[in-house]
């Protein structure tokens, strides 16, 4: 069973709202990473509002599903989703990256309700997610662990250490999603350090692989359901995305990995997002 039309519309509505909130938030604090937050919007939204079982009133509920934002710089979009879920008040988003805030520049599991793992230094999230999956299996728990990686991130060697371990232990309760937006801080991934045939690489490491358009909630949803059905090995969903998605002057531009948004840029972006492009 795929997404109903109604649910698809709800998720798309949330994505639109979250992009707008992201622009408001990053413009107001003049710091943070827009590009990678915008490319991950549909993925994070589908997970939190359609797939995952979590309890904002009891963030440490033992049987909750886990989400690890391995590409920790997309923290603003995670915070927006968590606030909408009710893990903390939405007004707190305005304190992002500011002194005494619970919303750190990169996710901190100690400070922010709903954040499962502190991330930021790239590459560690997949290994940790596999640890969570292993812990679930040993204890006979049914929860799933979802982990979102950036495509620049998989240049880190540890990701491939984790890839081997995931296959060796057949950790099938972990679903990795690759936000393949093709752009990293210094430029296009293909120029900085080409990844080659990403799907073939993961296949050869013993993973189940799927490919989706990472801006279509119904495709993301279907792939996750498919991943749940595959036993004996972990799944990675390669989500083709656009860095800066939704704000045309940010799309595909590495300069928008992380830079402050000017007033004129903010107004143009909001106009575009309101227009429902």
């Amino acid at each position: 069973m795929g997404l109903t039309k109604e649910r698809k519309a709800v998720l798309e509505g949330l994505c639109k709202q979250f992009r707008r909130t992201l622009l408001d938030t990053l413009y107001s604090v003049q710091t943070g990473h827009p590009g990678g937050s915008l490319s991950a919007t549909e993925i994070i939204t589908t997970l939190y509002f359609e797939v995952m079982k979590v309890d904002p009133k009891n963030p440490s509920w033992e049987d909750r599903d886990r989400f690890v934002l391995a590409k920790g710089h997309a923290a603003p979009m995670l915070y927006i989703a968590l606030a909408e879920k009710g893990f903390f008040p939405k007004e707190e988003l305005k304190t992002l990256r500011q002194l005494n805030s619970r919303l750190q520049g990169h996710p901190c599991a100690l400070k922010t309700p709903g954040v499962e793992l502190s991330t930021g230094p790239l590459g560690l999230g997949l290994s940790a997610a596999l640890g969570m999956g292993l812990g679930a299996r040993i204890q006979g728990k049914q929860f799933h662990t979802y982990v979102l990686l950036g495509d620049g991130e998989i240049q880190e060697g540890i990701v491939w250490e984790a890839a081997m371990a995931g296959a060796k232990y057949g950790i099938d309760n972990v679903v990795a999603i690759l936000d393949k937006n093709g752009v990293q801080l210094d430029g296009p991934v293909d120029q900085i350090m080409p990844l080659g045939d990403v799907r073939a690489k993961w296949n050869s490491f013993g993973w189940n692989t799927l490919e989706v358009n990472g801006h279509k909630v119904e495709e993301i949803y279907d792939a996750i359901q498919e991943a749940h059905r595959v036993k004996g090995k972990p799944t990675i969903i390669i989500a083709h995305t656009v860095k800066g998605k939704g704000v045309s002057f940010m799309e595909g531009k590495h300069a928008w990995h992380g830079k402050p948004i000017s007033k004129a840029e903010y107004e143009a972006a909001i106009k575009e997002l309101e227009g429902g492009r």
Partner: protein
Amino acid sequence: MAGAAGKAMRQVYGETLVELGKTYPNIVVFDADVANSTRTILFGESYPDRFFDVGIAEMNMAAMAAGISTTGMIPFVNTFACFMVLRCGDPIRSLVAYTKLNVKLAGTYAGLSDSYDGASHHSILDIAFMRALPNMVVLSPADAADMKAATEAAVQYKGPVYLRIHRNECPDIPENDTQPFTLGKGKVLRDGRDITLIATGYMVHRAMEAALKLQQQGISARVVNIHTIKPLDTNLLRDCAKETGGIVVAEEHSIHGGLGGAVAEAIGRLYPVPIEFVGVRDTFAESGDYQALLEKYGLTSQHIVKAAEEVLKKKGAKG
């Protein structure tokens, strides 16, 4: 005084893990292809379902352990001490320490104890790294009994712990073993009034030998085993400074950033007295017989005696 050569610390560690595995069904053990050396192979034989040899991929090992700890398991991460710091350093800082995860880090072959493998495998900066991490507990046992107690204490404590483990047989120290091991508390192994010898790990028994030699010169040396480098027993250190007026710190570690640094930081603030440091003097060591290395790189009881004499001179000049 130092008794006969006891069991190798790593063997005691491995056996203790097996015992603890009975009481704690939530202990899991990770190793990175050195299970025979770390002696976690014993745990693996007893509890194959809770043992994970992840291959030569230390960073992944530490990060997986961080993840599994969030599900209520107590992971022990095992590799050589030098790799624990240098290969696992990022997940240890960014996941384990930052988030106070309940992960135990067992760095074996510490100091120069993996002597023949050479400077690439020696570990003389691990204390400096580990004690600079907020939230990290740093344990450095002196002999077999300490090792067992430290491993048990690590499990009982909820949070990140680094266990510094020696490779070789260490002499049992009766004065040490008759006292209980309390995390965060130093042990006074021998009383004295002229100077305090503060040591950790293998150097504790060297300090006991040095105290005997000093006694022959009519010098009364107190000996303190600091098995918990962090949190440091600063009250005890302050009392020692006050009561003996001089300190020598001895450790199988660089003189930069280890126990010596920790003691100097505390004493400088609480009760400044002359202090000298016995340790590896800002150099890489080399391959060779373990005792020969300790001799060449300045880690014998005679070196402690010399350092004590320096302190006593300064103390005299000051007085």
